[in-house]
């Protein structure tokens, strides 16, 4: 079974992103970039399925500029077999990414596609479901456990109020949540070995997909700040403030 894992290169989640002086966009020049954390769970799960003898090949794919090679090399160092970079200078929305992945799917014919449940930059959480729709394949989002049983995959999903388990016929699309696994650390020798693994570059135009953006960014701004609070010295003072100043019945 071949597994395709989609990987997004995003601003490292520890970094507080700033706004350009003219308010036209965020300023991410020179900022540390990393693999989207949820995608790292997807890579890890694919590699574990290979280590269990269930998957035969793990192929990574990322969309963006040549700079995206770093996140693909990271995934190769974790243990993926090869990687594909779909090179594009366009500002790619989830729908455009899903269409590009569909085009790649036709070439690669994987049995399972894993993606992070959302990217921590745009927080959209759409690409996996869109890809499943375009392929007319079953989907399971927010996966916290998965188990391949022959031609089916059992997926436990984290939903509001608990969890839900679905059985999907392969091929299927699954988006991964943080509690699916703990991604392994990459050791330096693995990074060196990953340089020898195949990393193919395809031009997005080769895939002949309409990736024109549907959304126009008009403005970016800081969110409204909460008014500064006060520190209280004791439980009694806290209750007095809540009752007298906020009118809360306690």
């Amino acid at each position, binding site marked *: 079974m071949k597994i395709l894992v989609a990987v997004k290169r995003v601003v490292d989640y520890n970094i507080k992103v700033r706004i350009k002086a003219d308010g036209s966009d965020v300023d991410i020049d020179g900022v540390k970039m990393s693999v989207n954390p949820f995608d790292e769970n997807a890579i890890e799960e694919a590699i574990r399925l290979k280590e269990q003898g269930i998957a035969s090949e793990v192929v990574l794919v990322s969309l963006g500029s040549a700079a995206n090679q770093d996140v693909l090399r990271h995934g190769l160092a974790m243990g993926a077999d090869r990687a594909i970079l779909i090179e594009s200078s366009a500002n790619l929305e989830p729908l455009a990414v899903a269409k590009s992945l569909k085009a790649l799917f036709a070439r690669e014919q994987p049995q399972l596609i894993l993606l992070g449940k959302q990217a921590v930059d745009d*927080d959209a959480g759409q690409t996996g479901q869109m890809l499943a729709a375009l392929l007319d394949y*079953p989907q399971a989002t927010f996966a916290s456990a998965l188990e391949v049983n022959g031609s089916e995959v059992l997926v436990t999903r984290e*939903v509001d109020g608990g969890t839900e388990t679905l059985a999907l016929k392969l091929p299927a699309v699954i988006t991964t949540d943080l509690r699916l696994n703990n991604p392994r650390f990459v050791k330096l020798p693995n990074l060196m070995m990953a340089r020898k693994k195949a990393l193919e570059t395809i031009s997005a135009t080769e895939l002949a997909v309409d990736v024109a953006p549907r959304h126009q960014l008009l403005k970016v*701004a800081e*969110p409204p700040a909460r008014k500064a609070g006060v520190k209280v010295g004791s439980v009694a003072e806290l209750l007095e403030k809540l009752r007298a100043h906020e009118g809360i019945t306690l």
Partner: protein
Amino acid sequence: MKTLILAEHDGKALNASVYKAVTAAQFWPAPVELLVVGHRISAISQEAAKIAGVSRVIQVDAENLAHQLAEDVAKVMTHLAKDYPVILAAHSSFSRNILPRVAALLDVAMISDALEIQANNTYVRSIYAGNIYTTIQSADAIQVLSVHASHFSAATRTEQLAEIQAINPELSQQNTRWVSETRSQSERPALGSAKVVVSGGRSLGSAETFEQVLSPLANKLGAALGATRAAVDAGYAPNDIQVGQTGVTVAPDLYIAVGVSGAVQHTYGMKDSKVVVAINQDPDAPIFQVADYGLVGDLFEVIPALTSSL
């Protein structure tokens, strides 16, 4: 032209966020219709028909829709879509699962978790865990969006019953099978709509102390329990009570953060709360920057003292 809302429910009642989605939908000067999908849902459709501002309820009741699988609900919605230039739902794990699938089938982009509707195709939404607000304009002929429920007031109920129309689209997919579910058993109010939320972080130390320290307080306040991702990852609390960027967003009247450091990924999910109280041993914890009232102290002393003075 009409606006369609996908109504979330648990088989027994509508989710409270549906009332807020109705208010959001009023932005467009068009009749608002609610779509209720499931099995044995006539009581839910009745409730939906009594929301002020709803002109019609479309009920799709079938045995194989009991679990509202995304593949099926998306098919139902694309079948209906030609009459609706606006399709929306309150943002939740339910709508996040289904709406992107609908948007792709309609070949339109989607707006996730809109905080504000500025014009009939222009929205404010946040990126980077709520650190940045963006204003975006959509060029699509059909607007598919989820709305940040806590930013909209709840529509009221009326005694006037809107029309309920039952439809039976043909559904034949066999590729996804529902197997089982686990629902958290709790006497407490639902986290998403509770008036008071008591949330705990990793400082609680274990699942046992999380329960021992926070439960008596939550019980006295009639509050829902919440948790940070760190506390959930450590196994102190179940996943479905995680508040934040990747969990549930809450906006109660009172939010009490106990031993919560205040990472942006957490504050994203609670900063719309009316009054925020933070209790933390570290006077420099970022949670104090979003708290109205901060109390620096050992939570294992402060919380029992607070509980016993209520």
